[in-house]
């Protein structure tokens, strides 16, 4: 349960809000690199943290992210022409470079310096891995570039997809921290999904539906350990890291690629979900990559030309009651990503947390909300830099491991939950 004012604080991320300012301390995904595939390609609209922006790649390959609307009379630059080193408004020909600087106002006199005084709000746009990242905050507090492992392994070892989720970012993120739903909602997928099936850990998941939980502070956020019974009194641990504010990783299964998510606010009622799979030491196989592109694992099948899932709220996510009866899909919805999204969207655009009935098993969510609130308030009141900004906090991995009954997962997995380049993930 949360008080309404705290729910408001955590879910509102527009300019000037405490959570909005918190998000503006971090680099966040703005686009997949595939959205701006070549120099002078069409510009792309995006809304991030309730700001409407447009991204483009100029004739020299420089990326820009600027206010979507022309400074002249507010027309969208999406209709513009991306050519000869800038983005030109289709209405009256005003032209902007990647820094947002207006470089030409055709109606002005030949030697006019008027355009030098016209500049659109602009943010940096940097490619790291398959993602174009931006920082919407104060340039004087711009942090070091992201260090998450999935964007730093060679391209053949990683794959990232993106989908639009029609609900507030926080209820989507909370699904990424909540390890207890896997044995229920995703139970069908453990046996059938090509990116999950076959791992020894799956039988532990299905053999113990009442896991124990340990929630532990980490420098950048949390480690949530879910403990299930294994053989001879030992325990199967699944360890989920959360790095503030919006990065989660799913514990791995066997030698399958490791996956995780970024949950990025579009506005207060929508978010982008960036979903990745990578393997720390080997290339993804053709079969794995194809499965990801086909919407298996944590990915979705999107309507061609968009990032909206084929299964969406307008078609009840293609609910299949027969598959539900057969337990092929526990909820009747195909695919892990859409199983999560369907339920999270069903809560409403911003779930009313004053009405919820949390249980101790929700301790990870309880602690995450507390850490977000603390960080947002400390930033607002004291200017304190929040956890997760430091690149060191981003060098985390998820893990799955079998330990003896007396072993601490934090002690035993200190290396397993830390990025050690060239070493495989710790997985069962």
């Amino acid at each position, binding site marked *: 349960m949360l008080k309404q004012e705290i729910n408001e604080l955590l879910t509102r991320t527009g300019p000037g809000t405490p959570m909005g300012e918190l998000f503006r301390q971090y680099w966040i995904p703005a686009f997949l690199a595939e959205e701006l595939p070549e120099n002078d390609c069409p510009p792309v609209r995006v809304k991030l943290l309730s700001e409407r922006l447009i991204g483009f790649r100029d004739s020299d390959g420089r990326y820009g992210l600027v206010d979507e609307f022309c400074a002249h009379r507010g027309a969208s630059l999406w209709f513009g022409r991306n050519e000869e080193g800038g983005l030109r408004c289709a209405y009256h020909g005003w032209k902007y470079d990647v820094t947002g600087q207006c470089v030409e106002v055709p109606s002005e006199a030949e030697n006019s310096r008027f355009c030098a005084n016209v500049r659109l709000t602009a943010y940096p746009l940097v490619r790291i891995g398959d993602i174009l990242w931006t920082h919407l905050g104060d340039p004087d507090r711009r942090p070091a570039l992201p260090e998450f492992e999935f964007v730093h392994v060679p391209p053949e070892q990683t794959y990232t997809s993106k989908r639009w989720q029609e609900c507030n970012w926080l209820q989507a993120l909370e699904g990424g921290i909540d390890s207890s739903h896997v044995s229920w909602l995703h139970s069908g997928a453990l046996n059938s999904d090509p990116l999950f099936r076959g791992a020894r850990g799956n039988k532990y998941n299905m053999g113990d539906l009442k896991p124990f*939980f340990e*929630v*532990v502070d980490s420098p950048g956020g949390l480690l949530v350990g879910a403990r299930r019974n294994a053989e001879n009194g030992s325990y199967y641990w699944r360890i989920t890291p959360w790095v503030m504010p919006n990065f989660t990783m799913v514990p791995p299964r066997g030698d399958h690629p490791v996956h995780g998510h970024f949950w990025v606010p579009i506005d207060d009622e929508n978010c982008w979900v960036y979903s990745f799979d990578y393997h720390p030491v080997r290339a993804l196989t053709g079969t794995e990559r194809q499965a990801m592109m086909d919407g298996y694992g944590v990915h979705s099948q999107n309507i061609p030309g968009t990032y909206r899932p084929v299964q969406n709220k307008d078609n009840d996510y293609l609910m299949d009651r027969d598959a539900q009866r057969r337990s092929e899909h526990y909820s009747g919805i195909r695919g892990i990503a859409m199983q999560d999204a369907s339920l999270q969207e069903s809560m409403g*655009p911003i779930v009313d947390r004053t009405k919820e009935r949390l249980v*101790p098993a929700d301790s990870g969510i*309880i602690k995450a909300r507390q850490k977000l609130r603390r960080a947002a308030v400390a930033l607002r009141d004291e200017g304190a830099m929040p956890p997760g900004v430091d690149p060191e906090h981003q060098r985390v991995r998820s893990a799955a491991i079998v330990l003896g009954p007396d072993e601490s997962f934090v002690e035993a997995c200190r290396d397993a939950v830390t990025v050690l380049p060239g070493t495989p993930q710790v997985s069962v």
Partner: protein
Amino acid sequence: MPMRPILLNSCAMATTAAEARFRIDVPIAPSRATRVMALDPAAAAVVRSVAEQHWAGARFFTCHSPAAAAGGEAAGEVAGVVLRRINGSLARLSDELDGADVAVMVATADASASAAATIGDACTQRGIMTAAVILGDGYGTGGAGGAVSALRPHARVLMVTSDEHDVAEVLTALRA
């Protein structure tokens, strides 16, 4: 699969902000029956402080070993643990667990394993959910590692934190 028509008001589109106002809006039952038990003196100080806040129905206790408690035959003694209410009066564990649905143990590095075992076993017998908040910095010497080992068998959920405010945070979230 046979295709059936989907009515607008029977589909997921009814989760829009405009439709959210049609949700049933009735008061929620005020609380769970929560018992909060400090397992050691440092935890007791935290629990006493938390108990001063307004709670729906939570009851707060400190635990003592029988030898340390005044009066060896104290009424609160049950198989190795003596419970005291915040006002200092003795309480019987079995009585206090009657009707409870969650027991939250609060501990530091000095937590008593026998108290945790006694409470944990009593809760298991009664089908009462157990959780623990362990206050400490890290797992090393003097950290929370020992308490985690002591409590792990007896609490279904463990939160390890250096922030004592988490005790109140958890209780608030649980509507204690």
